[in-house]
């Protein structure tokens, strides 16, 4: 079993990379959007590090998933909350684990039902390189190759830790 990285140093580097990226792209006055649940923790952390005054929203993408026909609704759906106008805003979309890219596809669709953002920057803590869609992170903690049949999960919010779990059947 491969050792999982500590979250804290990853977050520190991501905060620095994100600041650099936003300034390089001249994305001013962005708002943060975390995807439930782990993405919200990471988004909160990065917001506090980079731009403590920036607004923070949360997304539960359950109503936009592409596997409703197969898997129905997840057991607990939380309301999405975006306490700011999305129109013409630069958004920083944050998730914990980037895998197939399907969650991000759903999140983008949901965001566009709130309005027309100026841009969306994707930030992820971990990239499990198993993409099924043309999506990549603009700012990334690290990439991981997982042992067969394992999933990585972020637990938190205090402390934020990565754990390996067998894939649920």
């Amino acid at each position, binding site marked *: 079993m491969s050792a999982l990285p500590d979250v804290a140093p990853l977050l520190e580097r991501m905060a620095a990379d994100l600041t650099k990226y936003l300034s390089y792209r001249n994305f001013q006055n962005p708002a943060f959007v975390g995807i439930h649940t782990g993405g919200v923790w990471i988004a909160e952390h990065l917001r506090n590090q980079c731009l403590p005054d920036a607004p923070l929203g949360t997304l539960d993408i359950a*109503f936009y998933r592409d596997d409703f026909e197969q898997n129905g609704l997840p057991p607990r759906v939380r309301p*999405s909350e975006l306490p700011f106008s999305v129109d013409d805003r630069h958004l920083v979309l944050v998730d914990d684990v980037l895998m197939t890219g399907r969650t991000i596809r759903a999140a983008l669709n949901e965001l566009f039902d*709130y309005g027309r953002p100026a841009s969306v920057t994707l930030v992820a803590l971990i990239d499990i390189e198993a993409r099924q869609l043309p999506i990549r992170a603009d700012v990334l903690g690290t990439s991981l190759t997982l042992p067969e049949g394992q999933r990585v999960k972020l637990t938190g919010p205090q402390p934020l830790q990565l754990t390996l779990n067998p894939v649920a059947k």
Partner: protein
Amino acid sequence: MTPIPSHLQLNHQGQLRHFLSIEGLSRELLTELLDTADSFLEVGERAVKKVPLLRGKTVCNVFFENSTRTRTTFELAAKRLSADVLNLNIQTSSTSKGETLYDTLRNLEAMAADMFVVRHGDSGAAHFIAQQVCPDVAIINAGDGNHSHPTQAMLDMLTIRRHRGNFENLSVAIVGDILHSRVARSNMQALHTLGCPDIRVIAPRTLLPAGIEQYGVRVFNDLRVGLRDVDVVIMLRLQKERMQSGLLPSEGEFYRLYGLTRETLALAKPDALVMHPGPINRGVEIESEVADGAQSVILNQVTYGIAVRMAVMSMAMAGQNAQRQYNQEAQHATDH
């Protein structure tokens, strides 16, 4: 070895597949439904008030009884879930109800409908359809006779939960024509299941059903006693045709004894919620100043009704999908 559905409304995994009555559903399931409705309520505040959950599905509103509000909120709920919606208003022929119902629904099923929202004047019509006519189509009961109106009950529960947080310490009074009210029946069951400790029904003896005690409620014939210190007052609509049936002396008499006025509302807790399933009869069961007053949440109920119906429809569709997959896999296993 194969699990047997424990209840007509549930699939092999205990998920909702039809929504016919509150009876037989667990507190966990009702709570899940309210939680899901909370999330749909937020969708109604967006620029685009639509989510893609039921894209490609066809929902038929099959109404054998007229109802503007219930039908339009079901229609809006289905459209906000991205389903295609057919509305059918069918005047029931009194002689061949059973046959008409059967043929109509089989025809709709042949058009590949995925869900029927059914309102019918006969108690048990939705059960009959789910059991005998179209078990593979998700059936949602939008009111059947005097029996049940489960989505109305759940929108009432959502209203109470959003304004009072929970049900654990509440006194809730249901006032009016309990005998003919499917809303009252479903509400008593929902409040009981969700753990409300003090459910009161307030009505004249002539408008109370026999065996009302089985619902775990306290019965009052005097409004002024029954309303004392309640947290929530649910008024029922008085149907004018009851006046002619000899069950009631007169409209004026009913209003004097059972009408919710500023004076009688003052007997409840100072911040008591005033609810009504609509349409309201001003000056018959409720005073205009109370219906439009600060304690009234009657219009909030309408808004919550859309979210609750979105939750019911998406959960029942998910349950039906899971059941179909399970049946296909079972069929596949026996074929090989």
